[in-house]
Every structure is written in C-alpha cells, then in structure tokens.
C-alpha cells in the first residue's frame, strides 16, 4: 500500500520568508497555502502574523480583498483572539500564566521581576520593540507554575531570579529571532532556563495510561471487524460519557450524528483544554496521541465521516510538530488517509487546527465557528452540531480523553470499561491536580473516588477547600469531602485545585471572576456586562465596603446571569460565587460591614486630594 501524506495545506506553516517580505506577498502566500478558503481564515491570519509580526489594517484589508469578503469580517475575527495582534508587539512576547494556582506559587513575584528587568508595566512593549509583557490565562501547566509562554515556547517553574537571565539571553540574540513568533513550532536554539515541561503523569490507571505502550491502530482493527452501527452500540454499551465536563453520552451523540442525513460528516477533537487547572489533555496529546487519533478514526468509521480535525489550543502550539510527526507516521502505516488498514473505501483524513487564545472555543459550537474562521461565539441551539455542525454538516465534537476512551473500549470491549467506575459514570477519569499539594500532576482514577481519597493520594488531607472542575465547577468545603467524583455527584472535566488552610477563598473567587470577564465572548448582555459587574461587586466586598444588601444584590445578579446567558460560559460564570456562598458562607460573613448601606466609594477617600490642599480634617465617615 502506498503511504499517503496529509494534504499540503495541512503541513505546518513554513517559518521561512521572514523579514523583508511585503504585505501583498505574505498575504498571497498565506491565502494560497489555505487553498483560498474563507473558512481557513484562522490559518491565513496566523501565517501572516508569523511573518509580519502583527496584522495591520492594511494586512487585514489585503486578506479581505483576496478572499472576497468584507474587511469588517476579518477585523471582527482577528480582534477576538488574544494571540492575534493588531498592533506591533515585541519580538519576544512574554505571557505569564495567571490563575489562583500560579499566583500562590509566586507568579506575582515573577511578574514583578520581569517588570523591573524590562522597565515596563504589564501589557506594555519595551521601547526597543524587543519585549512585550502580559498576563495570559492558565496555559495548562498548573502542576509546574509559575509558567510562561514566550512566543510559542513554554517555560515552567520560574523564579523571580530567572527574569534577568531570560531577558539577557533573548536580548543577546539578534535577527531574525531566537524564538519563532506565534505560532512558532519549535524551541530550537532558545537555550533558555526552564524551557522544559516536567512529565506530569503521577498515577497511571486501568484504561488509558497502562504499563504497556499503546499499539497504534488496535482499536481501529477491532472496529473494522464490526458494522459501523455496532461500533456505536459498543460505545453505548460501555456507557461512555463526554470527558470535557458536561458528560453527554458519547454513544447517543454518535448515533444522532450518524442518523442525520448529510453530504458529509465531521469528527472534531476538542483539544482546546482551557479550563484553568486542567492539563490532562496536554499529557494525552504528548504521550498518547495515537490513542486519540485511533478514537477519532473509529468515530470516522462509525459515523461515515471522511474528515477529522483536532482543534488544538493556541497555548499548546509547541505540540504542533510532535502531533504532525505522529500523524505522518499514521499516514505511512495506513492508519490514516485512503483505504485505512486495507479496507477499501474507508478513507479518513485528519488535520490539526491551531486556536489563538480564547477559552470560549472549548464550547463545542464556538469551536466550530472558530474552525470556520470566525469569532468564537457560540451558536444558538437547536440545531445541535450533531444535526448542523461544521460547514452545516452533522458533526461529532468530543474531548481528547473521550476519543482515547473510545479507542480503548473497542480494544478491550465495552464490558471491561463499564466494570470500572460507578453506575452512571463508567471507566476512569484523568484528573489534573494542582495547588497546595506535594504531588501535583495527572491521576487516572476510577470514577466514584471520594474527595478525601483523592486528597490522600495527592498528599493534601488537610486541604481547606478544593475547586472541582475549574472555575466553572464548584468549590468544595471539607464537610463535603466524602462526596464522590462522578457525573451524578461531583462532576469535573478534570481540573482539581487544592487550597491549604490560610488561603483567602474570596481572592480565589475574584481571580475567577476576572477570568470569566476576560473570556466572555461578548455576544449576549448578561455574560458580557454581568461578568464585569460581578467582578466590581467582589471588589467592593474585598475592599471591606460590602453590606448584607450587597451580598443579596450579588446573589441576585449571579442568578440572572446563570439563567439568561446564551451558553455554558455565562451560565457557569457565577458558580465560584454561588458555590462559595453556599459552602463557605463564613468567608463572606467575615467581610461584611454591619451598616445597612455603604456607597461604592468612600467620600473621604475620593476627596483626599482636595482635603490635602485645603488642609482640613475630614469628618469621620460614620458621622458624615
């Protein structure tokens, strides 16, 4: 059998061309590589930005003209993603990972060191144009914080003292660049301290991370021995539920997708692991990519799809090369492309789409929009993606871990899988554990494990509270440590953040509020405006100016946002507030002022400059 290769457009963009190329030439190249398709706008703008450094009005205009679309559409898309620059940025774009976990590991001090060494504030670019310094949301390294991205390169376990070394090394490099611009595809030549990622797997389990290395294609072979309908039945018999967090039955999703009449169907792997505190998909993508590709290919066979796409979060650009290497090996071994494993007519191509920094794209319909080269705003449902998804065709969007489980179910049989876990949550779950514990990392555990048992495993039995499922999940207090990790009790997409006694839960809640306000897509009123209002209300609480009336208002606002928002982001954005109010009310009570009402601003504070000029003593506020 002749090995086939992925289509040319799907190979990594060439980092050559570099300095000197004009806008017209760069845009012409980028559009040509993407086959002139408007739906590939994400690839086009990334390729253009990599060579030009940023996407100016002129560049966006040239792209719009080449594609024959209104210029406002390009600006709309480009302005949405955190990793796409409309203005010039430094040759080295330093993005420090920000989350409650990174902050408790010292990210604030690391940021201060970089600010001092570079002489700029967060969000600024140095005068010589060499460095831009910014915060970014959790980059998927919660077990080795403080971490950072410099262009596409990941640095971990940073200390304040590293800032000067890193800046010095990068400064010593001159044109073109020590590190390729985002989406850079390698770290060669960087020679930077901490430019390495510690293996994160702590506890292998019974399904995914087993002792023997996985045999690429084993699940596909088992699937090909069955009729496509029977493959779907096996997934249903295993009672596999989506591992991204929502827990939708995968067999049902595949069945609905298969039943929808269509010209073509799509299989999409959601590798946009953006929930703060989670990094288990990163470990699967680095260590078990074939299991994921096998699962996608099995889905392709079961659904009658010929095309699969892995949507990889922009923060994981560094995995681009290794994933393509794995993919090329699959084409060479007949596990992808035409007539897979010799089965005439079973064709399935896989390509990788890189995202550009938007948490919301982990929501399946937003992911599909992004994949079509648009802003990542979710769609209205119905219709669901299983009926009308990518390019309006039936589409199954599943998490990396879900596809890996599907491959194992075909390999081992559904009974072996369903024997593990609980009645409603079968199999094992990958947990990404971070925070105040001596053994952070990925744990593969059977569903049904109690929080207590998990805390013993990770070495943090004294934890004061645990954030289960990331910001969109819930905050669990010690009284609930007997609860079980399972869809029917404590669901989690995999993020488990552990906090020791003495940590301020409201500061954590405030970080999460900031996260949601920054990641809201802006489409609907309650999420766009409400997430910012929640943040402001929390600021009032943290500045010790809140009364019981504020708490009631905060709760009412949180509930309206949860009920009226268009998608899961807005619906879950108030969770950190609502779940801590429910489970740790004493944290709020301790902050409350006894007054019936206090305004947002202290009048005396606001008048301070005038008071200083006049030299008058202000009336104490409680007598004012």
């Amino acid at each position, binding site marked *: 059998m002749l090995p086939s290769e992925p289509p040319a457009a799907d190979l990594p963009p060439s980092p050559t061309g570099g300095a000197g190329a004009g806008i017209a030439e760069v845009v012409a190249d980028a559009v040509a590589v993407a086959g002139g398709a408007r739906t590939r706008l994400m690839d086009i703008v990334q390729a253009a930005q990599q060579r030009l450094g940023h996407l100016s009005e002129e560049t966006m205009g040239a792209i719009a003209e080449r594609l024959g679309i209104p210029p406002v559409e390009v*600006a*709309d898309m480009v302005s949405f993603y955190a990793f796409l620059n409309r203005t010039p940025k430094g040759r080295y774009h330093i993005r420090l990972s920000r989350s409650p976990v990174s902050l408790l590991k010292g990210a604030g001090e690391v940021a201060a060191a970089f600010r001092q060494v570079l002489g700029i504030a967060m969000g600024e670019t140095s005068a010589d144009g060499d460095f831009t310094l910014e915060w970014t949301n959790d980059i998927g390294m919660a077990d080795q914080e403080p971490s950072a991205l410099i262009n596409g390169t990941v640095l971990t376990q940073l200390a304040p003292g590293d800032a000067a070394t890193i800046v010095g090394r990068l400064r010593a490099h001159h044109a073109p660049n020590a590190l390729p611009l985002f989406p850079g595809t390698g770290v060669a030549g960087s020679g930077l301290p901490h430019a390495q990622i510690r293996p994160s797997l702590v506890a292998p389990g019974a399904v995914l991370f087993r002792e023997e290395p996985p045999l690429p294609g084993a699940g596909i072979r088992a699937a090909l021995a069955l009729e496509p309908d029977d493959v779907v039945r096996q997934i249903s018999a295993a009672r596999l539920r989506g591992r991204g967090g929502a827990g939708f039955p995968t067999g049902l999703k595949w069945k609905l997708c298969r039943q929808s009449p269509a010209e073509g169907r799509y299989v999409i792997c959601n590798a946009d692991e953006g929930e703060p505190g989670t990094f288990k998909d990163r470990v699967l993508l680095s260590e078990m990519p074939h299991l994921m590709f096998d699962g996608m290919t099995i889905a392709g066979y079961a659904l009658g799809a010929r095309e699969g796409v892995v949507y990889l979060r922009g923060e994981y650009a560094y995995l681009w090369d290794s994933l393509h290497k794995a993919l090329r090996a699959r084409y060479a071994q007949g596990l992808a492309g035409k007539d897979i494993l010799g089965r005439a007519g079973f064709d399935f191509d896989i390509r990788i789409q890189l995202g550009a920094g938007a948490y919301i794209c982990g929501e399946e319909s937003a992911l599909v929009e992004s994949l079509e080269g648009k802003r990542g705003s979710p769609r209205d449902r119905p219709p669901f993606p299983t009926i009308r998804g990518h390019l309006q065709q039936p589409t199954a969007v599943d998490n990396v871990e879900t596809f890996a489980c599907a491959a194992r179910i075909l390999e081992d049989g559904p009974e072996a899988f369903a024997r593990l876990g609980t009645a409603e949550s079968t199999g094992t779950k990958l947990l990404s554990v971070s925070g105040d514990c001596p053994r952070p990392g990925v744990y593969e555990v059977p569903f049904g494990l109690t929080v207590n048992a998990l805390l013993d495993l990770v070495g943090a039995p004294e934890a004061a509270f645990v954030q289960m499922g990331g910001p969109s999940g819930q905050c669990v207090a010690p009284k609930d440590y007997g609860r079980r990790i399972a869809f029917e009790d404590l669901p989690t997409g995999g993020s488990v953040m552990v906090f020791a006694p003495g940590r301020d839960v409201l500061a954590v809640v405030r970080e999460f509020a900031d996260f949601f306000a920054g990641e809201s897509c802006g*489409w609907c009123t309650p999420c766009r*405006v*409400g997430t910012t*209002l929640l943040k402001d209300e929390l600021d009032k609480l943290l500045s010790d100016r809140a009364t019981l009336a504020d708490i009631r*208002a905060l709760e009412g606002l949180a509930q309206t946002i949860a009920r009226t928002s268009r998608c899961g982001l807005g619906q879950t954005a108030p969770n950190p507030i609502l779940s801590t109010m429910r489970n740790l009310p004493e944290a709020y009570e301790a902050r409350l002022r006894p007054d019936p009402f206090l305004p947002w601003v202290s009048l005396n504070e606001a008048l301070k400059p005038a008071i200083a000029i006049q030299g008058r003593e202000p009336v104490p506020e409680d007598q004012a």
Partner: protein
Amino acid sequence: MSGERFTFTVDGVRVEAEPGQTVIEACDAAGIYIPRLCHHPELPPVGHCRVCTCIIDGRPTSACVMPAAKGMVVENDTPALTAERRTLIEMLFAEGNHFCQFCEASGDCELQALGYLFGMVAPAFPHLWPKRPVDASHPDIYIDHNRCILCSRCVRASRTLDGKAVFGFEGRGIDMHLAVAGGHLDESAIAAADKAVEMCPVGCIVVKRTGYRTPYGRRRYDAAPIGSDITAKRLGAKD
C-alpha cells in the same frame, strides 16, 4: 409554509403556529407580546439581548431563536421574568452612557421604553462609564457610540437588506464594540435611507437635521407602551 399547523401554550393561552416559525414569530402573529430588543422581524434572529427569555418547557430560553414546537409550554408574562428582564435592561444602562433627558431618541427609544415597561426606577448597578467616540464624519448621518447596545441590528441589516456590510463587531467581552468599515462613516458606503440606519432601536445611529422634529411627549412610546401594536391584534380580534 408547508406542513401542518400546530398549537402550543403561552401563559396558558393556546397559540397556533406553523412549522419553521420561532416562538416569538408565532406569538407576534397571535397578538402575544414577548418583550425583545435585538430582535427585528425583518432580520435573522441572533439572541444578543436575552430580553425575550421565557421559560420554555421548564428552561430559560430565548424566544427569538427557539423554533416553536407542538405542545410547548411557554411562560412569558410572570413577575419573575419581568424582574429578570429588568435586570438585563439595567445592565445595558450601566454598560453604555445613556442620558435620556437630552437624547434625540427619548420617547422613540426601545431601550427606554422597556425600562418603563419593566418598572425600572433607579440605577441598580454602578455605571461603567466607558469612553466611547461620536462619529459625525458623514454628511447625513452620525453615530453616538455611547448609546450603542450591541444589538447588531445595523450589522445584520447592512448585510442582509442593504447589501453593504458597513458594520461589524470588534473585540470580545465588555470590550466588544461596533465597528464601521473603513473606520469612519464617511469612508463607508452608508446612506441615510439605509435599513441599517432606520432599524437602530436607540439613539445611536441618527440621521442629521431631523432631530427633535417631533417634540418630546408626542412620540411613539409617549402614546402607548412598547408592544401595544402587537397586543392590539389580539385585543382587536376579541372585540
């Protein structure tokens, strides 16, 4: 429309619908008013404002994007939903810079009219006081971005009805804002007769030299509350 007509209920009232209609379309035809802001019958629905949120079969759902279905149970006019909708309007008032007392649209403004309808009395949230520009570069039209509520009516109308794509969005979250092709109105293809201008529900996109021709007190919502045109159909039918 092909297919069998069917019925569902809204606050206990039977409503007839045909396949392909959304809940809000079927209710409009039946003379039942579901409050809305971003929705416009001539434009594809998009679900920005969430003011038309109803409880449909037990779940909060936007009526403008939800296809009507046989046997659906819709709650629309309830104290709880009115409170929720009022909160949404209050959010929009806090987000932009809205000064009704001297706004050209006062009395014709759908945002203001909904505030009155829901009994909004005082600001519930601290104002965000964003810095937003006024674009008066065009000879016949100006945009006061302070009053934009991101309903996208102009974006949709310019594309689907005017065939121009003058407007788009930029940014995300609270930074999302309306953008004009070319940066300024005078560099765009907009004209005063465009549907995109006519359909602005607030005082954001305004035709020059027409302001205040109808005095305050004699405007659309001074005469009757918003939604009266829709409910009149049902009340009229009863007579």
